[in-house]
């Protein structure tokens, strides 16, 4: 459409904002995700900013298993994010439920509730692997935003 839309779309691709949601993980993947933001791994050099508000976010990082209660929170967060959006599931728990997948209050991986675009294996996933996951998510994000532009 207009020039402003194009500008916004480019800006979003160049500087994606992350929302991190802990969906019931053991903290291992969470602290590794946080470690990505700190000086030693510093994802901010790619323009990635961690935000607390789903309405500002482009990429949703989900760690941990989904249970009956946080399933609703996860869906609400996903729905509140603006299109296009990419979901990255981190860690064995986020991918399939991991070691807990047979526990009584566990639904399973994140993809049982919301569509997942990138899977980052590991228990916990290493910061490098998470960075890889974010890079893959960015590619996907580009594809999605292109597809959206053509759709219009």
């Amino acid at each position: 459409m207009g020039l402003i839309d194009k500008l916004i779309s480019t800006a979003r691709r160049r500087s994606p904002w992350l929302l991190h949601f802990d969906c019931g993980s053991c903290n291992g993947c969470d602290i590794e995700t946080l470690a990505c933001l700190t000086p030693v791994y510093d994802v901010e050099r790619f323009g990635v900013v961690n935000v607390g508000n789903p309405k500002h976010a482009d990429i949703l990082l989900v760690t941990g298993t989904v249970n009956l209660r946080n399933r609703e929170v996860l869906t609400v967060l996903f729905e509140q994010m603006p299109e296009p959006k990419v979901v990255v599931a981190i860690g064995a728990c986020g991918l399939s439920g991991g070691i807990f997948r047979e526990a009584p209050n566990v639904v399973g991986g994140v993809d049982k509730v919301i569509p997942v675009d990138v899977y980052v294996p590991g228990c916990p996933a290493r910061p490098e692997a998470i960075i890889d996951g974010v890079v893959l998510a960015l590619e996907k994000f580009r594809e999605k935003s292109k597809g959206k532009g053509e759709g219009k």
Partner: protein
Amino acid sequence: MAGTVIPFGPQHPVLPEPLHLNLKIEDEIVISATPAFGYVHRGLEKLADIRDFRQMIQVVERVCGICSMIHALTYCQGLEALMGVEPPPRARFLRVIWSELHRLHSHLLWLGLFADAMGFESLFMQLWKVRERIMDINEATAGNRVILSVNVIGGVRRDLDTGQTGWILSELAEVDKGIKAMGRTILHDYTVQKRTRGKGVLSGKQAMEFGCVGPMLRSCGVAQDMRLLGYAAYCELDFAPVVEQDGDCYARCRVRFAELGQSIDLIRQAIGKLPTGDISVPVKGRPEGEIVARAEQPRGECLYYIKANGGKFLDRLRIRTPTFANIPALTVMLPGIELADVPVVLLSIDPCISCTER
């Protein structure tokens, strides 16, 4: 405006984990706080029915990623006592080294998050930068950054050679330097003092009544530390619990900061006294009976109740984690403070929700 209820969480910028609080406030003052849980609950105690007692080591490690090593240690010590196994001396010292490395990384992590909750982001970044050295030591010695998986029933799975112990000592010297450089900021900075002094005060009597554990209890004048029980090799090392008197957020900060130095000292002592020999003994048979095992985690006392019937699967495994014991105290710490101080007071108990709910 009498009694507006403000929901705090489950997804909140200062909270890395989903905890929900219903805060009833009047003007800006909290008058009551009711916690709500269930966002991280997995029910892993039930997994003891389908995973055998050896496989459960890896499961209990994942109760909490921050103090995973000590969870597995407590569980293994419980089973060792049940099965009459004595781990070799070298294994006991190695367990101390890894436990204290975990305490170091957990306290640094907490100090960072606490600084972040106060809005002191440069301190957060600096502390996490120092913490990466500990993560490197973890990875080089155990093969994984966070969940070490070093414990087995009857000993440990990995050994340290002399090159590694020397490298650990030199890395620790760097960590020590990094922490000391930050010490003045953490303890004497005007901003930190303003945000933490006199906030969330808990008296020693209250703390005992609410069953608080660990740094929470030690910050209000009660010298209780499960390491004094002398498990692993703590009986052969020289240390005294760090105690503060004030019972506010600042005192908790001081306790945890002092424990950083204590942990470094304990690792140095353990490496100095590290005996030679085997790192594990073979274990045969199956556990039978019931036992309570306790150990000191970064957040306080952790209790495992194990009941076994001589079969492959345990009858009952009950895990009481430190945050589970510390959360009830929030219901008396939060009322009376301003809404803006809630994140600081909440983080001062070092909440670990995945521990609490398991």
